[in-house]
């Protein structure tokens, strides 16, 4: 389990990360969302033991990352947003280098390397030189390198940046698979629909502050206190607008493409009551549905576009 407790990073006057708290469990895929300069990379680097926090700490399976970085490092795999690879060697030799550096016994190395190559779909490239691989393949090799020692926590900083659509889909599938394997995966990204596909938890950070975190569905549920209902009447919309304006839960109405978008401050019960009342009053309704929020809507509702 990863337990982040009041993690804070200051650079002089600048507070890059402000007392962040969250907890993740095995199998969680956590999408870490925020604009550029929000403090995502700083947080990830602190969790990776590469930066010392100004205050607070985090524990991974009960081990304090600040006090015992050397004990935590073998338990985590880290893929930075800008990464390099040792050149002049083949993919297999590259992974052998890291297997040796993680003190994996020589007898086990070949089997482990074969497994991670298979997992990252790089088996066909095992004899290729590292620098001849495409960007997407290098990204997967970097991930493969982070997996040779079977870490329990994976920190992936913008893993899909600079990739073509196919490589993005492949990385996405891979992350989903890693979550299914029971690893804790923390992924930062700007591309929200991408994260929505495979994250079961998200955290939104802005100006160094974690504004919200939790299960994706729960966050959306919380934010949908003020729902938007799309109602498509048959015939003229004006009588319906007048009728809706009398309703206590209705806060505003917009008209677009023949549909009414109603800002509604009620739950499912009140929605059902409204529909029943409208039909009883003789209005002919062709469509009545709640507009569901996606991750982009959540992000836009929560953030203000500020950087620290």
């Amino acid at each position: 389990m990863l337990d982040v407790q009041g993690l804070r990073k200051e650079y002089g006057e600048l507070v890059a990360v402000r007392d962040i708290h969250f907890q993740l469990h095995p199998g969680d895929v956590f999408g870490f969302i925020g604009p550029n300069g929000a403090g995502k990379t700083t947080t990830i680097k602190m969790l990776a033991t590469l930066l010392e926090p100004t205050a607070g700490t985090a524990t991974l399976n009960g081990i304090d990352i600040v006090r015992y970085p050397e004990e935590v490092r073998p338990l985590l795999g880290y893929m930075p947003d800008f990464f390099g690879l040792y050149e002049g060697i083949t993919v297999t030799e590259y992974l052998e280098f890291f297997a040796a550096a993680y003190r994996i016994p020589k007898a086990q190395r070949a089997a482990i390397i074969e497994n991670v190559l298979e997992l990252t779909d790089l088996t066909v490239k095992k004899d290729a030189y590292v620098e001849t691989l495409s960007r997407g393949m290098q990204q997967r090799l970097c991930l493969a390198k982070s997996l040779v020692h079977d870490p329990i926590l994976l920190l992936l900083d913008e893993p899909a940046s600079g990739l073509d659509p196919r490589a993005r889909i492949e990385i996405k599938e891979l992350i989903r698979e890693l979550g299914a394997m029971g690893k804790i995966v923390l992924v930062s990204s700007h591309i929200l629909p991408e994260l929505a596909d495979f994250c079961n938890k998200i955290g939104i950070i802005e100006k160094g502050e974690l504004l919200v975190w939790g299960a994706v569905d729960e966050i959306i549920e919380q934010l949908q206190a003020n729902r938007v209902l799309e109602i498509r009447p048959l015939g003229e919309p004006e009588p319906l607008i007048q009728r809706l304006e009398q309703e206590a839960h209705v806060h505003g109405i917009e008209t677009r493409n023949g549909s009414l978008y109603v800002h509604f401050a009620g739950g499912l019960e009140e929605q059902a009551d409204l529909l029943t009342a409208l039909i009883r009053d003789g209005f002919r309704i062709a469509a009545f549905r709640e507009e569901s929020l996606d991750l982009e809507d959540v992000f836009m509702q929560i953030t203000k576009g500020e950087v620290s």
Partner: protein
Amino acid sequence: MKTLWENPLLQYHLLGATRHRWKRQPWLYWAATLGTGLAYLLALQTAVNYRPGIDIALWFSLFIMCLAAPLMAYNLLSSEYEKQTWESLVLTRLTAREIFWGKWGVALTRVAVLTLLLAPFLLFSDIRGWYTTTAAFIVLFGWGALLASLGVWLSFKLKRTLTTASVLYAGQVFVLLLFPMLYFILGERSLPRELISAVQSYGDAYYTWIICLFNGAFIIYINPFYVALEMEHFRWLSDWWWTEHNGNAYQQGLRYMLWGFTQGGIYLGLALLFAGFTYRGIKISWRK
């Protein structure tokens, strides 16, 4: 790691990164090897035929060392920053000591190999006796080790390969050429030999080494090319010279000052100091 050889960094730098180059650009590498090999053999043949003095042989070897040693260390740690591989390296289970040995060990091994390659030039000179031979090798290897150690440390501190190389080469120009010139321009007009002539015991030698730190002669005495120049004075003395009191006052002064050994020891001591700085740097800033 049970042995140094099991260190993956050492293996990567000594073998991993180089062995494939032969396969990938065979013509280029064969041509380079052939050219260098021929030049080496030609130089060796000249040394065998003409038997140069120890000063010339050591100058030649030092010149090669001054050019080559920085190249053996200048990018060992800076490339980790420039290619952004250092974070991955830090997170492995390699300890600070292993990372340090993986880098410093590579630089030192390369310098040792170069010293061995240059050994025939010293051995085929008209060198006499074990004292001069040993002193010459210590000076050559010590200077190389100092450059390599300084290179590894600068490479860690400056984090830029080109800057490290520039500082190493420019530093040598200052220490070996410009500072001695300044000594001649601002102070003495001749080599500081009278201090050496006055040395008549090991005690004298000890104080002379201390005094020269303050009167500027140190910059001349510590210059490996000057060390080689004065070693020419050993030319006509046998090993008996080491135990018997023969030779003139100047030669006796050099003997008491442990000429060559002291300077080699200083180079090696400084090399260890910079190695210590590098180890400490890795341990602290990489939180190892």
